[in-house]
C-alpha cells in the first residue's frame, strides 16, 4: 500500500497533533501530514498537493467544516478524496449536513486511535 498524504483541518493546533498521533498509533502508513487551521487554507492546500485523506473539524473560524466540504466538491483536484469530520458537537443535524455534502464519516471528540482506525478502514479499502 502506498504511503499516504493526510490533510488535517482544525483551528486547534493541539487537536491537529492529537489527530496526527492517533493516525500513527492506528497504524496508518503516513508519508506526509499537511495542516490547515480553517477551510479556506485547506482548499488551497488541496489544490496544490495530492491528498489521500482529509480530517476536518466542523466548528472553525473563517470557513467552517461544512462550507469547506461544500466548496471541496466543486474542485476537480478533490474528486474521490475521503473526508472524515471531527466534531465536538454531537449535533446530529450538522453531522447529517456534512454527510449529505460529501463527507464520508465522522468522529466525535474525544476519540481513541482504535476509533479512528475503525472509521477510516472502510474508506481506505474502497
Amino acid at each position, binding site marked *: 500500500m502506498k504511503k499516504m498524504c493526510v490533510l488535517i483541518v482544525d483551528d486547534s493546533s*493541539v487537536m491537529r497533533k492529537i489527530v496526527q498521533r492517533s493516525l500513527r498509533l492506528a497504524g496508518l502508513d503516513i508519508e506526509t501530514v499537511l495542516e490547515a487551521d480553517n477551510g479556506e487554507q485547506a482548499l488551497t492546500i488541496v489544490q496544490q498537493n495530492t491528498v489521500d485523506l482529509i480530517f476536518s473539524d466542523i*466548528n472553525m473560524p473563517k470557513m467552517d467544516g461544512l462550507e469547506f466540504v461544500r466548496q471541496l466538491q466543486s474542485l476537480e483536484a478533490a474528486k474521490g478524496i475521503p473526508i472524515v469530520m471531527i466534531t465536538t458537537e454531537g449535533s446530529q443535524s450538522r453531522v*447529517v449536513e456534512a454527510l449529505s455534502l460529501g463527507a464520508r464519516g465522522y468522529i466525535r*471528540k*474525544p476519540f481513541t486511535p482504535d476509533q479512528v482506525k475503525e472509521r477510516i478502514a472502510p474508506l481506505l479499502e474502497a
Partner: protein
Amino acid sequence: MSSNTDQEVNERGARLVLTVRTSDGAPRPKRSWTLPEGGWEELLRIAASEILEFMLGVQVGELPESASCNSTEMTAMVGLAGELSGVLSLRCPAAAAATLASKMLGTDIAPTDAYTRDALGEISNVIAGTLKAKVPGLDDACLLSTPTIVCGGDYHLFSISNSTSVSVALQFEGQPLWITLDLHR
C-alpha cells in the same frame, strides 16, 4: 394574554416540538430538552471528570473546599447559544494549564504558550460538547462558540446577571482547576 398550543415538525421532520402561541400569533417554542436528575452541577462534574481522564490519561478528584480560586492565571471560555445559552469557563494556574497541554500532546517537553492556550481552549470545548450531549434533546438545539482564552493573574470574572451559575473544583496530579457553567435564565 391568551395563548393556545399546537405541534410542529422541525426542519428535519424528526421531532415534534410543542409550540406556545401568544395572542399576537408569534410562536414561542418550548424547550425540547430535559435536564437529567442531579442537575447542572452533577452533570458538569461528570462531563469534566470524564473528559479530563480520557484526554489526559489522569485520575481526577475533587479539590478540597479550602483550596482558593484566587491563583487562576488562565481562563478558557466557550459560549453556548440556542435553546440553552450561557458560558462554560475553565480556570487554572499557568502550571496546571502547561501540564494539561503536555498530557494532551503526549509529551514531557514543556509546551509553548500558544500550545498551552490552545489545549486549554480545546479541552473546554470538548467538556462543553460532552455536557450538552448528556442532556437528552439538547445536542441539536444548542451550538458552541470557538473558545476564548484570557491570560494573566490580575482579573476577576463576574457571573452574568439573571443567570444560574454552578461550579466544580477538581484536581489532577496535584494541579487544581475550576469549571463554571453560567446559564442565562
